[in-house]
């Protein structure tokens, strides 16, 4: 049974069918990739699945539980399905560490009652999140920057942090929207190995990216989207040879790769 199942998903904006009858699934312990040209509807799929956009029709199931159409984004996130965004702004006025603390803290730690009770009430919990944050930041090579306000970080650093911010919640399905864009080549290597290791730990990953070599290197299964519809799916090897994919990415009559 797949962790996430999307069936016949449709989403229109005015006259434009941004997502046109898309079905896909993502499994735990696998990296599922969603590729396609700009405007293919990849991010819209993410938005609808995570509750940021309302769907027109179609069914979404997470861990075999149907997600009703009007579920709020924060409710979907609490199921253990978390996403990142293309533009990694994070929480700009907070430090790197604070960003992770926000992500890693549960509702009760952040309640008014605990705030009024003072550090005695929330100190232990925040300490726990901090230790987990330190682990993640060391892994991503960001620990030295933990007290820096996000506004002062580089784009690449922000991108890596976006990753950490979602991981700290121990999600079951991690949805990454272009994790490699804006990240320097050296860091992409680290990112790939991190994604593989997370997969091996049993996390499900659904990844959108434009960087074909990056994504075909990490994916177990690939869906190709164009103009809102799935035009091809298969293993990275199959996709790399698929004529329509080559046409989209390389143009007609240039099948030299």
């Amino acid at each position, binding site marked *: 049974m797949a962790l996430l199942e999307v069936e016949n998903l449709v989403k229109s904006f005015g006259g434009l069918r941004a997502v046109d009858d898309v079905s896909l699934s993502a499994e735990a312990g696998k990296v599922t990739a969603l590729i396609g040209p700009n405007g293919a509807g990849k991010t819209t799929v993410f938005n609808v699945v*995570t509750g*940021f956009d309302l769907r027109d029709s179609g069914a979404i199931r997470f861990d075999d539980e149907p997600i009703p159409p009007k579920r*709020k*984004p*924060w*409710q979907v*996130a*609490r199921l253990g399905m*978390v*996403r*990142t*965004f293309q533009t990694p*702004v*994070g*929480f*700009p*006025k*907070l*430090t790197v*560490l*604070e*960003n992770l*603390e*926000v*992500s890693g*803290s549960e*509702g009760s*730690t*952040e*309640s*008014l009652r*605990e*705030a*009024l009770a*003072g*550090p*005695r009430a*929330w*100190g*232990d*919990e*925040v*300490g726990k999140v*901090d*230790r987990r944050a*330190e682990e993640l930041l060391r892994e991503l090579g960001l*620990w*030295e*920057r*933990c*007290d*820096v*306000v996000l506004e002062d970080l580089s784009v690449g650093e922000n991108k890596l942090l976006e990753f950490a*911010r*979602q991981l700290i*919640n121990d999600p079951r399905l991690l949805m990454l929207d272009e994790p490699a864009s804006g990240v320097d080549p050296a860091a992409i290597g680290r990112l790939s190995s991190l994604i593989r290791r997370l997969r091996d730990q049993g996390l499900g990953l659904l990844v959108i990216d434009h960087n074909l070599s990056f994504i075909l290197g990490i994916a177990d299964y690939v869906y190709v989207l164009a103009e809102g519809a799935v035009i091809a799916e298969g293993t990275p090897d199959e996709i790399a040879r698929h004529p329509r994919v080559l046409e989209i990415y390389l143009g007609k009559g240039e099948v030299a790769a």
Partner: protein
Amino acid sequence: MSSGWILYAVGVLNLVGFYAIVAMVLNLEAGWGGMWDLGLAGLLGVGGYFYVLSTVDSSGLDLNFTPGWPMLLGILGSGIVTAFVAFLIGIPTLRLRGEYFLITTFAFAEMIRQLIINESDFTNGTLGITSIDRPFATTFGGIKYEWVLLGITVLSVLAIYLLMRRLGHAPYGRNMRSFRDNETLALALGKNVTRRRIQIFVLAGFLLGIVAPLYVWHIRAIVPSMYGPDITFTAWTALVVGGIGSIGGSILGALLLVGFTQGLLFIPVSAEYTNVLSAMPQLLLGIALILIMRWRPDGLIPERFSFTPGNRGSGGRFLRSRAAAIGGLLGRGSPEQSGRS
């Protein structure tokens, strides 16, 4: 200096304290919660009127609601009633963003003022109420009342400051500052932003209701014109000048702004210049705001100052110092001091 001058200065300080509190509450809402409220005056009006009506000596007044409660009950009641009004206003307005929220809250404040003017069976209309008892009015017989009120004001400022510090440094405050800047991400992290916004708005209403009597005690009367937009804009300017988002900025802003503009009125000038002088506060306010916006847009005490001391790639120094502080509070040593470096 004659004692009249000193008393005047003490009165100004009372006003400074009141504005410092209002600006701190505004900081909670706007500086941290991201809700740019222009309706402070309305909520202060609700609190002020409820306090006065519920505690006033009804003899000589023919109003519909004058139960003659003790002061403490009146203060608490005004907190609760103002919180409830904030809740009613918050339900429709908090769905709006940015400038739309701003305009709607402004409209609600104006509606409240018109209600106060028109419901004269309850509020005595534009005539207002001038017989207002003040706390500890006879306890310290030997000294002028302004000094007593100064004591109350200073204690109130301190209490609100400590409350804001506590809220600001708690995960609660961090959560606010996070969705203020990026609501989408907060939602993606599973935070129920809408519910939190309403909670903050109601909390702010409660605090404004509690402190509203300070203003009434200072003026020694209550009339609808006390709750015009002036009060809102002065608090906003104090907040922006002092530093929006920081904890102590509001106090500094109120001190500079209100202290300076009120003090200015006392410069002795010849009669032909009095009209010039009376226009000066607004003029200087505008210039100060322009200068701050141009050279110090984060205010005199920026948000960073309150929350991230010594942030510049310090590699966990802040975390360690805070862990130690928390550990100290809990009566334990700092966790894993040796494991880091």
